[in-house]
């Protein structure tokens, strides 16, 4: 058995353990059993250990830090989520957040595994110490924006709960999960329709290479994803729209503050991320900005969060409005991080890396 096989077995084991641990965390939210949370934490430590070994093997096998393609980057991101959550849980009573954080880590790591590619040496353009500086900073900022999104989302939910608008709680969950389902479904459908990796989906759409049957596959994928998302959203909403759920969520003030802090620390990191990227691009290609989709989308994200900070700090927006912006912000982040690589930049020089 070679190293990459062992690595894959470990990653699959990690993903399954995340799923089990995450389910127990959700169960904890309902039952409030201390035994459950102890078991979930123990499993999470175990999963972190196997994940660390898998990443370490990858590092040793490929000869560079695991951040050079989408699989490595997402796997590392999932690892980071769990690592920081376990640290936070040691010092703060944030066990309840595990019901969201651990399933997210599961989703990120398993989506990463879908993009699995064998270990490869770095492409010439990536052979620079800027790689890990740039990628680490960018990923930290994405993580903080995700935190801000989570707090913002639960702010909206909590507000509906306190106002006793239980139907809106349901709609919020359904909207979130069905959108996620729709996007994943459309993407899976487009993969089925035209598995050729030569062109990115948007170029393909504008180049008229699809046959009618391909469109059926894409739309079908979207519909299936949408339906699965709606069903999941219905159950999540049903669990979330009980009056008692409001007491298990943090107060509106705390959620608002956490959502703001995520952006207040994420924005400077994103700025450093963009600046290091610009310096690196100048070193590698002699130009510090080239309106490449990845660059452009990072600028879009940056402008968006810059706007958020202006509305908040100088115009005095708070609460619901800020929470909605924090939720929209993560859509921008996801497009920058994943959307550009999956949907847009098939022709660009750094389409493969996930940084």
């Amino acid at each position: 058995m070679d190293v990459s096989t062992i690595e894959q077995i470990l990653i699959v084991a990690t993903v399954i353990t995340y799923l089990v641990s995450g389910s127990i965390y959700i169960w904890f939210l309902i039952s409030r059993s201390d035994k459950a949370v102890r078991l979930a934490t123990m499993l999470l430590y175990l999963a972190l250990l196997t994940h660390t070994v898998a990443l370490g093997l990858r590092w040793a096998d490929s000869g560079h830090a695991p951040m050079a393609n989408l699989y490595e980057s997402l796997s590392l991101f999932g690892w980071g989520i769990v690592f920081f959550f376990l640290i936070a849980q040691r010092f703060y009573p944030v066990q309840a957040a595990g019901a969201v954080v651990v399933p997210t880590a599961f989703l990120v790591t398993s989506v990463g595994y879908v993009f699995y590619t064998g270990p490869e040496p770095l492409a010439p353009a990536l052979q620079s110490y800027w790689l890990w500086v740039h990628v680490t900073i960018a990923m930290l900022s994405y993580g903080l924006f995700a935190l801000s999104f989570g707090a913002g989302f639960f702010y909206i939910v909590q507000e509906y709960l306190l106002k006793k608008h239980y139907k809106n709680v349901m709609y919020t969950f359904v909207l979130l999960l069905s959108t996620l389902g729709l996007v994943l479904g459309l993407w899976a459908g487009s993969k089925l329709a035209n598995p050729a990796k030569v062109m990115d989906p948007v170029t393909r759409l504008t180049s008229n290479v699809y046959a009618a049957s391909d469109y059926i596959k894409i739309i079908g994928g979207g519909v299936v994803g949408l339906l699965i998302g709606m069903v999941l959203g219905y159950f999540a909403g049903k669990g979330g729209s009980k009056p008692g759920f409001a007491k298990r969520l943090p107060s509106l003030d705390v959620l608002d503050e956490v959502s703001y802090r995520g952006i207040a620390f994420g924005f400077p990191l994103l700025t450093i991320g963009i600046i290091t990227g610009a310096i690196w691009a100048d070193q590698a290609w002699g130009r510090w900005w080239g309106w490449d989709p990845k660059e452009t989308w990072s600028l879009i994200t940056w402008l968006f969060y810059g706007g958020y900070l202006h509305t908040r700090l100088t115009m005095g927006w708070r609460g619901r409005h800020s929470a909605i912006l924090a939720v929209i912000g993560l859509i921008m982040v996801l497009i920058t991080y994943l959307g550009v690589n999956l949907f847009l930049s098939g022709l660009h020089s750094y389409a493969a890396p996930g940084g």
Partner: protein
Amino acid sequence: MSPEAITESELSSEKAAVITENTGSDKSFFGKSASDFVILLITAVTMLVLDIVLSISYYRSSSAPDLRWLLALVDIVTVLCIFGTFGGRVKHMLLSMKLALTLLFVILILAIVGTILPQGENVANSTWVSNPLYGFYNHIGLFDMYNSRWFLAILYLLGFNISFCIIDRLPTSFRRALKPRIEVKDIFIRKCPAAAAFEGAGEQGVAQAKDIIKSHHYHLRTAESGSVLAEKGRWSGLASIAFHLSFLLIGLGAILSTTLGFDQRLDIPDGKAAPVPNTELRVLNHGFNMETVPVKDGDRITGYRPSLYSSDLELTQNGDSLARKTITVNDPLRYSSSNWLLTLITSTKVNFHQSSYYQSPSGGYVSVLQVTYTPGKSLIYVGFGLMMIGICSIYFPHRRIWFKADENGELILGGRSNRSRVSFQGEFDRIEAELRLTLGKQEAG
């Protein structure tokens, strides 16, 4: 200075703009006198005609140099003249944050459109080419969005907006950071957004307030009259200006680099030499080198891909060798004149980047170089630095609390924050509560 004047000068410029705009609206011709209106109208029409004439002559001549930046500038001035004639005051528009946020939003939308539509050479592979309106779309710059004249125009307008805001705020920010007003009138303290008063607390109360406010990490200064200013985040206003100034520097650097500099592709076959465009230099490719690694599908090798490639370059001028280096993708050859100070100021460096390579039909490799000269680079890097320093202003809002005992022995406190006013109100409320508790205890004891 009267207390009203102080309060007015403390008002943010947007609010001041609203006030003047409202009072001026009863005059004829959109708040302008008839003669002003006629002069403005003539200017606006002249600018519009100039804009149209310049555009037509530019697009008609095929060999004109790239003057889109100039056209964009004329566009902006034209729009401002029209706004000045039929709208409110140009100054107020340029000073408003609403304009800044609107422009940011427009840039955001255009940037999104630009990543979805094929740009540059990618258009050739798309169905857009067969679209009957292709010529028109191409003409208005839909497929070269980021270099189109109107995208540049929006960037310039944002640049003007930011510059005017900086100029407007600079004196106040400097005064607040360097010469803060410690001595203020009672009415100013009472009119602050966060205010509190304690009857009969007197000088004793001022001493207590000093201790409590100091414990909240404020820096205190006392005037001779006994009035106190407590503040933190004193440099916040200037840091914020540094942040916005960084945009201008980066933008200026970009304009300098695109207008005065160059960025050109240079293909040199193995062992051959070529003149460097725009200079008197020649570059000689001593040898192109490539290392490959096998691409595996399972255990089967399906092909090879490069893991490293390099060119051994020598730079010459009139036969004299100036520099020699083996360049790789992340390690370019940077050649500068011997005057290091001049190099630092004007960034007069010619850079040779290893861009890619291809196999020539006659055999052997052709090394593809990217030769760049970016005179605005120093400005851009200073801009990056300022941006990083300025961004810290997010965490340290400038918070000020004035307090004193008035003639009737009443302790009055008034506080202001340049941003995050809600969380400042929270802190102020806590200070007030602590003070009430301490003063209450003293009364009881």
